[in-house]
């Protein structure tokens, strides 16, 4: 049997389990509807605002609820997919495939993460293009930067939940911890901003940006629009470094998950 075949077999069966009809259809519907309904671009009056900043502002506004739905979907896919396989013992059947363990985990991660992110990005970029084609088309770098930064926290939470699911071998507890992580992240953004203002130092913002680089990108665009008089005005290269650090952290958690799945998981 060709090596690709069992991989595709597991990927297809995971996709079938994660995205039963009509879950992705309903999600596409919800993603699009919530993107438009909750978007709000008001408040600029007649003041000058740069196109770059407005595109970034628009993306932030469009992805509010859809990002929440995406995180919940990631958590559900991980905990009910891999978590259930571990809990019910079906992972033993999967291990019988002529495939290395890391390929099995890759297939599971592709199903849980990639398909959900593609669905999310597909609807988001379509919504952006429908609303403001003349602003989105000339600013692809802003769109790319904003989404890569904003997705880092979601993927980080997903990776943490994956590791926890593998260690606990139970999806139910891992999903609760994953949801708590998500709310903690939402609170932390406001908390570190307040703290930074209170001590008049950007240090809390910089430290937190290592985990959630979207904060660094937020401040980068804010400083472009409002000048360097904001509390923290990172340059583009600095913001990209934070993004690299954020994704590096996620990659290291994924590496730990692979290590645990391949070497430590006894079933």
């Amino acid at each position: 049997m060709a090596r690709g075949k069992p991989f595709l077999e597991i990927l297809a069966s995971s996709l079938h389990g994660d995205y039963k009809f009509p879950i992705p259809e309903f999600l596409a519907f919800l993603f699009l509807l919530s993107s438009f309904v909750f978007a709000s671009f008001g408040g600029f009056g007649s003041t000058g605002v740069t196109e770059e900043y407005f595109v970034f502002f628009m993306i932030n506004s469009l992805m509010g609820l859809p990002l929440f739905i995406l995180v919940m979907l990631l958590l559900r896919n991980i905990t009910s997919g891999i978590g259930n396989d571990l809990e019910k013992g079906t992972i033993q059947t999967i291990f019988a495939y002529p495939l290395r363990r890391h390929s099995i985990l890759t297939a599971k991660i592709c199903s849980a993460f990639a398909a959900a992110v593609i669905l999310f990005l597909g609807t988001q970029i379509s919504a952006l293009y429908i609303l403001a084609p003349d602003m989105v088309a000339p600013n692809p770098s802003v769109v790319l930067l904003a989404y890569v930064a904003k997705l880092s926290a979601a993927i980080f939470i997903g990776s943490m939940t994956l590791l926890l699911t593998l260690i606990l071998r139970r999806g139910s507890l891992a999903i609760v911890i994953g949801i708590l992580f998500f709310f903690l992240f939402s609170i932390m953004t406001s908390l570190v901003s307040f703290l930074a203002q209170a001590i008049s130092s950007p240090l809390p913002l910089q430290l937190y940006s290592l985990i959630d680089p979207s904060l660094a990108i937020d401040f980068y665009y804010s400083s472009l629009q409002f000048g360097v008089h904001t509390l923290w005005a990172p340059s583009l290269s600095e913001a990209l470094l934070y993004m690299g650090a954020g994704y590096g952290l996620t990659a290291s958690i994924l590496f730990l998950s692979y290590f645990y799945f391949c070497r430590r998981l006894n079933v």
Partner: protein
Amino acid sequence: MNRRWSTFMGRAGTILMAAGIALVMLSLIPARTEENTDFEGTTLLQPKTFSVESSFFLSFMFDPQRGFYVSVQANRSVTVYLLNMGKEYVYEWITDHFSENQSSSSTANLTVLESFLSNNPNSVAWQGNTIDGKVEFQYAPTKLMNVTLIFSNPSIETAKVKYNGKLLHFIVPSERALNPAKFALPLGFVLAIPWLNSARKRTRVGT
């Protein structure tokens, strides 16, 4: 077709259909009028002249969710131009290219406008004529922009122009949501047919 491919294409089709339905639903939501943003005005246009309207609300910055409605009535055939730039730029251009008495007034000779439009061909966001004495339009920008409303009187008689309007808030402009839905729904349906057909057959065998 391979069953796996048929399932993949079919599911992509049903997702496209779901997105299409969402867009159709969004297109049915009408624009909301922003409170206390009604504006109106009257202008007397001498033959072969144009005027730049200066309503307070039209000096706002418009974005893809904030547009406006304008209705223009005139006793002669009047051309209405909506420019995708602020009136300051229009005045500045006229000042740079024409004499002081042409640029200082809010109404000026039509040749000035013709010259401006030929030098700024991409500046017209919308254009219309007062057919049967009236023209009305709703505008939703596709980018962040200032606008300028211009009335021009190409006839050899004086025209009296009355206009009124209001600012609108869109969730998404109807036409812009409907256009992609027109493609997504039939394309999704075509892609989904083989999968739906095989699903139906499987259900029949199952029963």
